[in-house]
């Protein structure tokens, strides 16, 4: 929990000056990063930022044009076979054999990882149980829902008890409820002590799962650091408050700004939705704002916290918008804020 602890920990993944280009396009343009053992590194960036290319190089599916990378002490280019023994990979698209039943998928991978027949059987049973897929064990994976397939994919990457796990956009394309399920599984895996490198397009996902974050854009690292440091840079959460009486919107906003709980950040009035948007940098500030609203004598109809969208993170860190914004809704929110 302390700095000393962190420094004593080994480095599970090192990346130095990694370059990969496809013809003229540079998918990776000199990437450096370190992932410490037992931690979760989030790699955040829009589509086309080079996240998948990075994961594919680290899992030996692609070779870099320049630079060096090691995973668990093995060089990705010179020691691919040794490296493959210690990693697990869950791709952006569920990489299980759809024609095979869930159990057969896991058994097959167990055998490919040199488990004995008995161990492979036991491990398949155990992981299906753990990922709540026992009932679907005998059905072909093609009949699974998106979330089930993603869980099977996670189970498959855990069979060899990997030291380092690569999760390439593990929840892209999933509905919010299913996303939560997958997050819970990933958190449990991290609890087992595995080192994780996770790519994502969602700030919320990075915040849920990662302890450290590397923000990439157009093949370059634009920011790196502990999540809370970066959040402080980009302004953290906002509190959206809807008073029961819409007439109280403006007086309440004025009162909050006068109190100055959130420093220089000011409250935004959104009359269209009858809400206030208050930027908060910490849990203390959040609590203080809620207290102030109560003290002001305003009854609250609803109150929610909102995270900065990838777009906002990008705007703060790079001064330009993400090259390919994914979520239109949060982007609209941001424009309202800017008004």
């Amino acid at each position, binding site marked *: 929990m302390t700095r000393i602890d962190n420094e004593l920990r080994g480095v599970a993944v090192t990346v130095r000056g990694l370059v990969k280009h496809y013809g003229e396009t540079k998918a990776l343009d000199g990437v450096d990063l370190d992932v410490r053992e037992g931690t979760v590194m989030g790699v955040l960036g829009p589509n086309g930022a080079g996240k998948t290319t990075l994961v*594919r190089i680290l899992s030996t*599916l692609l070779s870099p044009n320049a630079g060096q990378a090691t995973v668990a002490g093995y060089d990705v280019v010179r020691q691919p076979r040794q490296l*493959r023994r210690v990693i697990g*990979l869950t*791709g*952006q698209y569920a990489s299980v054999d759809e*024609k*095979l039943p869930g159990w057969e998928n896991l058994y097959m991978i167990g055998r*490919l990882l040199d488990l004995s027949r008995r161990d492979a059987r036991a491990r398949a049973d155990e992981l299906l149980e753990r990922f709540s897929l026992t009932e679907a064990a005998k059905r072909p994976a093609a009949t699974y829902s998106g979330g089930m397939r993603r869980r099977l994919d996670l189970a498959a990457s855990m069979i060899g008890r990997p030291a380092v796990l690569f999760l390439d956009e593990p929840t892209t394309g999933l509905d919010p409820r299913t996303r939560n399920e997958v997050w819970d599984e990933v958190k449990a895996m991290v609890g087992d002590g595995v080192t994780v490198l996770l790519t994502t397009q969602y700030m919320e996902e990075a915040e849920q799962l990662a302890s450290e974050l590397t923000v990439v854009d157009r093949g370059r690292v634009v920011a790196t650091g502990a999540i809370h440091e970066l959040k402080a840079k980009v302004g953290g959460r906002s509190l959206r408050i809807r008073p029961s009486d819409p007439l109280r919107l403006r007086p309440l906003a004025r009162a909050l700004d006068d109190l100055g709980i959130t420093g220089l950040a000011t409250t935004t009035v959104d009359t269209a939705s009858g809400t206030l948007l208050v930027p908060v940098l910490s849990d203390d500030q959040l609590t203080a704002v809620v207290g102030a609203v109560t003290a002001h004598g305003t009854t609250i109809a609803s109150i929610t916290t909102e995270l900065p969208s990838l777009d906002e993170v990008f705007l703060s860190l790079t001064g330009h918008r993400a090259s390919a914004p994914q979520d239109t809704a949060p982007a609209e929110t941001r424009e309202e804020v800017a008004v």
Partner: protein
Amino acid sequence: MSAATLTAPDLKMDDARIPLRSHLRHTGALVRRNLLWIRQDPESMFDAVFMPIIFTLLFVYVFGGSIGQSLGGGQDAYVQYMVPGMLAMMGMNISQGVGTGFNEDFQKGVMDRFRSLPIGRGSVLVAKIVVELMRMLVATTIVVIVGVLVGFDITNWGGLLGAVGLSVVFGSALMWVFLTLGVTMKNAQSVQAMGFLVLMPLQFGSSIFAPTGSMPGWLQHFTDYNPLSSLADAARGLMVGGPVAHDLWVTLGWSALLTLVMAPISIHKFRTKN
């Protein structure tokens, strides 16, 4: 300690080799996978089961009478001529499927998973070939059974086994060609179309279905050098008698050549495919 963050740590030096036992285990697991596919999707056996039946019946009853006459007999004479040829054709037609199946694997993420596992690259290819060989044996067995039912006279059991073996050997050599197509082409449809384009002229421009004597001169040159003619003639010699040695060696030579050239190419393409 902080130095660790500035320079890459020293590499661990473990043994990279995969023992033979592991290779066999991996191949076994992947063979099981491909066999489960068949159980899941029995229709994928249609080509191996029904094609030999339909083709044999069609050729015997549609062309049998007239071609048989030119052979100095009737339909019976044609059956003796055609069944060894059909045997040769089956090896080839089945081997074509290996390319499309392989290509479909690449479209799905599962190939990424295989390539990120500590297994020999060849195991995936070898497993596919083993299963196709099984399908080939099914198809050739059915040809022989249907052949006997329409009047094929087995005079030489040893020769029959030899002919089946030769078809399988040549078919498996041809599989490397289709595996290469499967790895390099964009989608399964183009693999199939390409296979069709290559196979059709080779099959019909050969001595598989009809004696080449009445074909025009230029075509006879083609059929003479067509390895499928050698295969069909060798199978014929083995099953119903006649000269064998020359065609047998030509066929084995082609099989060796195709394997030696195409196996390294397909394995290389497979290894380096992104």
